[in-house]
């Protein structure tokens, strides 16, 4: 018996002197029939999205004999686990998937997505270049932008009228304006600014000439502790204060919670996205708000917005490359982007489609203007996912806004953490 145990223990020790690796994803195949698996993100109100997708599926199945399309809706919160599992086990992976553009670099480095050839696709030439850039890693396209999301400044027209105020013309004006509103109406947050709202804060940094990181050769170097960046951070964190947006209420908020305060009618201003418009229209603030581009440093300027949005990509291990690519071109193409706009309000990524919907919907103007003024993006490196998961930027904002820490010190330590992440692998 003792020998048996010793043998088992010995076998286990010998079995692996290195952790498990799944081996890189096989190049996949190119079958022309069978089931095409698609992953899309679940939404709070999924009905309209599902209807449009169903239409696309029906159209696709009719055009392709012997092909069925299985669409699964996955949760945004658990996407990291789902995608990691899919990359490790190509058998359970989808062929086509929707994913956030900030996750792209990490997914590509993980060997998840295949390079796309846009040359043979007519419609591709109308994709907005700045938006298409968010689907590229090292100049190669891995994702087709399905929609783009930009944020602008929402404000309550009734409050501004009552207090006889004008929307801010520069970033500098926001704090005093918000302070005045809260002084006059103590129930309202001057502006709903969240300590975890990275994409609400970054325009302040970019407008001041700062950045999260800059490229140095083929590596990124943190720039969040530069003088310009710190000026923007100071401007933003100043908003999370008792006389504007009390830290106890605001410091823990991310983007959704920040917009929620505005929806509840408890905030006079908020930085919100075009994707928030429909939900604000169904809230306490409905009919009492307007949107302007977030102003820049000087009057007349627009603060660069973060080019958020989702991409559609084909997985590297897909057994049905051609079918997957064709389905992607259908769902991500002009016709269905247009339909997705009607259903969900998602801003199209084709220049002509976007101009068309903008003309028909004047409410989109501030967002289109923001897009046209130029957008910015997070560093395109797999390490960004790490920095994001480690909450480096939210921690920096919260430390300064609520922790009473010195901005210089907090920015320096955030930069150090980022550089450590950039340097790894």
């Amino acid at each position, binding site marked *: *018996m003792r020998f048996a*145990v010793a043998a*088992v223990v010995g076998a286990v020790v010998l079995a692996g002197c290195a952790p498990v690796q799944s081996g890189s994803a096989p190049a996949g195949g190119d079958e022309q029939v069978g089931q095409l698996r698609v992953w899309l993100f679940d939404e709070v109100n999924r009905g309209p999205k599902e209807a449009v997708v169903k239409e696309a599926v029906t159209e696709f199945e009719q055009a392709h004999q012997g092909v069925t399309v299985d669409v699964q809706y996955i949760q945004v919160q658990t996407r990291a686990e789902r995608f990691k599992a899919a990359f490790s086990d190509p058998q359970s992976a989808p062929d086509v998937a929707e994913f956030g553009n900030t996750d792209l670099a990490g997914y590509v480095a993980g060997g*998840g997505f295949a390079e796309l050839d846009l040359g043979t696709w007519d419609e591709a030439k109308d994709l907005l270049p700045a938006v298409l850039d968010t689907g590229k890693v090292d100049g190669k396209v891995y994702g087709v932008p399905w929609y783009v999301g930009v944020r602008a400044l929402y404000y309550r027209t009734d409050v501004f009228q009552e207090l006889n105020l004008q929307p801010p013309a520069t970033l500098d004006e926001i704090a005093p304006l918000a302070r005045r509103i809260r002084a006059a109406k103590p129930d309202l947050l001057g502006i709903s600014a969240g300590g975890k709202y990275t994409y609400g804060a970054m325009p302040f940094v970019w407008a001041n000439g700062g950045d999260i990181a800059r490229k140095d050769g083929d590596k990124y170097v943190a720039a969040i502790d530069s003088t310009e960046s710190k000026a923007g951070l100071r401007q933003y964190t100043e908003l999370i204060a008792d006389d504007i947006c009390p830290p106890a209420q605001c*410091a823990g908020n991310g983007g959704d919670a920040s917009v929620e305060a505005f929806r509840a009618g408890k905030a006079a201003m908020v930085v919100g996205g075009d994707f928030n418009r429909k939900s604000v229209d169904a809230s306490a603030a409905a009919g009492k708000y307007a949107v302007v581009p977030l102003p820049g440093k000087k009057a007349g300027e627009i603060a660069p917005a973060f080019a958020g949005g989702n991409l559609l990509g084909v997985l590297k291990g897909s057994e049905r490359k051609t079918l997957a690519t064709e389905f992607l071109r259908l769902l991500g193409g002009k016709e269905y982007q247009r339909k997705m706009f009607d259903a969900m309000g998602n801003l199209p990524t084709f220049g002509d489609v976007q101009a068309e919907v903008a003309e028909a919907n004047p409410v989109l103007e501030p967002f289109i203007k923001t897009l046209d003024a130029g957008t910015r993006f997070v560093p395109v490196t797999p390490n960004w996912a790490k920095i994001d*998961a480690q909450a480096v930027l939210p921690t920096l904002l*919260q430390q300064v806004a*609520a922790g009473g*820490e010195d901005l210089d010190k907090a920015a320096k330590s955030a930069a150090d953490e980022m550089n450590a992440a950039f340097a790894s692998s």
Partner: protein
Amino acid sequence: MTMRTAKGDGRIAFAYLAPALLVLVGLMGYPIYQLVLISLFDYGQEQVSGGAPLTFLGLGNYANLLSQDRFWAVLGQTIGFAAVCVLGTLVVGTALAVLATRVRTWARMTLFLAALGAWATPAVAGSTIWLFLFDANFGFVNEVLGTTGMSWTYDKWLAFGLVAAQVIWCSFPFVMVTLYAGIKAIPGEVLEAAALDGASTTRTATSVILPLLRPLLIVVTIQSIIWDFKVFTQIYIMTNGGGIAGRNLVLNVYAYQQAFAASEYGLGASIGVVMTALLLLVTLGYLRALRRSGEAL
């Protein structure tokens, strides 16, 4: 008894234990072996899915971890937090166990039902319910206290206190039930003899009941230490992933955030190994201290 039979006994005992040992090795040994192994490598998502070669780091992950100021701060916080939780759990559990032996049946039943309810509540549900109760704007507690708008999860120490209270709430029933059973198992004759000898209540408690409860106390204390040192759910949910700027982080949440969410499995594994080693040390130290004081008695 000759040496020979003793040896034979040992062999038979081993044969009886072998199946359990096999299961333990399979279920505990192998994962721990993998954990230690992974902690020696640079093992991220790229390595798992085979997109990048494995790099052996030796103790690199540990060196990196131990050189982080943040790690030490979080470690200190975790120890303090666990200590408060263990102490609170033991005090509340013991007090209520004693109370349960002194009250009428219906009161005892009520107490047990309430305690078992708290015990049976899943940690996620319990934490969420507590959050609702202590919500800044709509919470019952703020309504009763007349402090509407006050945030219980904002201030660092208040947030830790609230989470500790929740942890104690869901872990005292175990201590209470165990000790109640222990007290009930003390033979009446022993207590009677003590009373006949003229021992006061305090004297009976410290010289008769406590020594008899010692084995049970050891078990519940070790259990509580291990349990509270590894708290994850309550902190993660109630402080929204570690509080403002991560000031309410404990080791388990820190490991998750820094390592697993960021796909740095090697670093995460090394935090796991450090935690396991610490817990083993604490438990061993505690057992030894108990044995020493037992000898002195």
